[in-house]
């Protein structure tokens, strides 16, 4: 049975078993491979995407659960990779191997939506489901603070 959903602003229809996790629908069916597999059990955060703006672990989200909903992946986070987090990630040279970073950025983006000025403790609480085996955590924390700053600065500019 075809399941309809919206991925990065585009309506899509997939004919897959209802229990197939969103992760594999994105990767194998829709060829959106920016979202990564890390554990298949919601333990590492590499597969994080947004469902109607809320971060979810796509490896444990059956595609049937997102029928009719909007999904945003790293590919759809911003036009031309200009999200303040993406800029800050480059400024602090965050990635090492890069594999977990899409999930890190998606989790961080949802945090900043909710909390435009997070403390270290709030960042750690939001990000502790996202593993990075290379150990880029210090830079992730710095880059989230920086992205929050960039977002606030952009807002101030707009208001002025």
């Amino acid at each position, binding site marked *: 049975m075809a399941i309809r959903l919206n991925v990065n602003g585009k309506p899509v229809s997939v004919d*897959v*078993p209802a229990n*197939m*996790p969103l992760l*594999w629908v994105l*990767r*194998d*069916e829709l060829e*959106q*491979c*920016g*979202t*990564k*597999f*890390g*554990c*298949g*059990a919601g*333990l*590492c955060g*590499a597969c994080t995407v947004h469902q109607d703006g809320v971060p979810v672990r796509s490896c444990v989200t059956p595609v049937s659960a997102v029928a009719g909903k909007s999904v945003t*992946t*790293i*590919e759809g*986070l911003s036009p031309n*990779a200009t999200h303040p*987090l*993406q800029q800050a*990630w*480059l400024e602090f*040279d965050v*990635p*090492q*191997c*890069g*594999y*977990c*970073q*899409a999930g890190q*950025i998606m989790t961080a983006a949802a945090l900043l939506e909710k909390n435009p000025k997070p403390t*270290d403790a709030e*960042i*750690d*609480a939001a*990000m*502790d*489901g*996202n*593993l*990075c*085996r*290379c*150990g*880029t*955590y*210090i*830079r*992730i*924390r710095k880059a989230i603070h920086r992205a929050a700053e960039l977002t606030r600065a952009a807002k101030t500019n707009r208001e002025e």
Partner: protein
Amino acid sequence: MNRVDKVSRRGFLGTAIGAGALVLGVQINEAEGATPAWMPSVYLGIEPNGTAVIVAHRSEMGTGIRSVLPMVVADELEADWKKVRVEQAIGDTKYGSQNTDGSCSIRDFYDAMREAGATARLMLEQAAAKKWNVPSAECKGQNHFVVHSKSGKKAAYGELVKVASTLPVPKKADLRLKPESEFRYIGKELPTIDQADHTRGAGKFGIDAKMPGMLYASIERPPVYGAKLRSFDDAAVKGVKGVVRTATIEGFKPPHMFQALGGVAVLADSTWAAAQGRKKLKVEWDLGPNGSFDSAKEKAEILAKIKQPGKVVRNVGDVDKAFAGAGKVHEASYYVPLLSHAPMEPPAAVAEWRDGKVVTYAATQNPQAVQEAVAGAMGIKKEDVTCHVTLLGGGFGRKSKPDYVCEAAMLSKQVGKPVKVVWSREDDIKFDFYHANAGMYMKAALDAKGKPTAWLHRSVFPSIGSTFDASAEYGQEFEMGMGWVDLPYAIPNHRAENGAHKNHVRIGWMRAVAHIYHAFAIHSFVDELAAAANRDRVEYILDLLGPDRNVPIEPVGMKYWNNDQDQTKFPVDTARLKRVVQLVAEKSGWANKKPTKGRALGIAAHRSFLTYVAAVVEVEVDDRGRVTIPRVDIAVDAGQIINPERARSQIEGAAVFGTSLAMMGEITAADGRIVQSNFNNYPVARINEAPKVTHVHLVPSKAPAAGIGEPGVPPIAPAITSAIFAATGKRIRELPIRKTKLV
């Protein structure tokens, strides 16, 4: 240039260019009908439009090496980095070793990269000289142009390619390498080429590789090392939507090397369908002798063995005599468990068997090992295996061992289609080449100041040698040479002994390898001796290192490994080790931060991969015994540093890797089966468990470049336990730390 770049990207992994398309700029351009690049070196070509195509022949797993070595070429070429395109090499012996491990890429290829760039620059200068009819010594490559300063003439590199390509390649002796003052990229902090892709999910990893018409495989492997397939029932599998068929993979013949483990594969039209089908498989195994393997019993066995004399592997002075006459003696035993690499991207590859040849796209640290292993599995020549190298989502040594690529190739031959193999996390944790568990017994005779007059160190561990020789029972020269037989302390009597032990799982090298357990034992013991003598630990370590000198290492029955480097070029230099100890003490504020209850600093200093590292770790232990790490300082003397920014990031990462293995990493086995399965029961450090801040202090040095990827790891665990002792009085002699109750 943009157009070429796009085609190249698509051809790299996409489906637009069919299986077997080559990724090198040359072939891509040929496919487009353009003139092939001029390639004065295997590492470098220049296209008529001036684009320098630099070949990255080492694998990228997060160190930045696929950018940094090309930057060295670009520097000597006097290339404008904006006009450089990096192409990843396929596996080919013409590039020299591509085995990206051992922290040796810069050390082994810095000179070769400089020569490649300088060769092309000289030829471009000669081409300009010919064109202008002036002496070539008056022509100089400068930021992608050759200039003749006397006449003010200037020609872009692209304009000179045609003439340059007709010139003989100059001899090495005729090259003019740039003086340091003229470096554009070497020693600078140019961003690496993949960072932007990583922020938008565009990096192409092994798991992202696709081939047209491929099937996805999920493989049920022997649950016990050496178990054999008895029978299987796949009746229920075939009812799973998307499943195409099952296939068996033959088990390895000892030694296991990088052969597939064997098992039963379910092949399907998606990853998910293959995994669902696998759940319906019923498989019977003959478990063999390792079916009773129990890691708790093995630990007891190892801890008993280290109480017995072993094979002497280093002997200085007369330890027995010194112990016989000693007033005070201190002894301790240490244990480190099996560990799993657990890179965030599990092993992944796609392969196609066609007409007696194999093409594969693999997340591999060693494409030439892929060629050899796949050729061995298929009974073909290694030249008939084309290995394209993707980005690696972490490697840490796991992806030097291409058993997963063999699986994909073997399955492809059976099913007549390309096959993609992606290990689940459970597969990765349960079927790794594990970092060896090790027991270490230490004994010292002490003088009046608490300094050792004699030092005995016994180690027992299953050797990595068992991967290549099924009968191996003793450590290999390189395992002994990793921070053990090369003890640098000024102790007149010193003996190291290795006891025999067999492996019961696959044992492999993991980031920092045998340094992990040797550093833990040696530096923990030093910490104990300093405490017993009631001396400041920094002062004690400096005293132990003794006068500034190169310590000649002369092991018994083997040569000193020293990363295959001569001790005259890379000596064990106590002055450099002392320097990093002093630097880290100064930067961490050691002298002013005296231990208080629940909060203290710890220290360890270790030479590995020819690099000198000292770490100071600050820990807090709360009233419930929970450990956090507010701050780490690490001083590093790695000789010349090519990209200080990426060097710092490696050391920051090493502090986290070291924290994971110190605090929480442990693999155990019961009834021959690995107990752990995923990040719930094989945890690695999360953002709130990792060091909150890590300050990296690089020592400016003109010494030859040593290693960076691994040397940050070994001192972390003993520095943490040193700090915990200072904060709580609890001495931890076994990893992981979480097993010890601190209150």
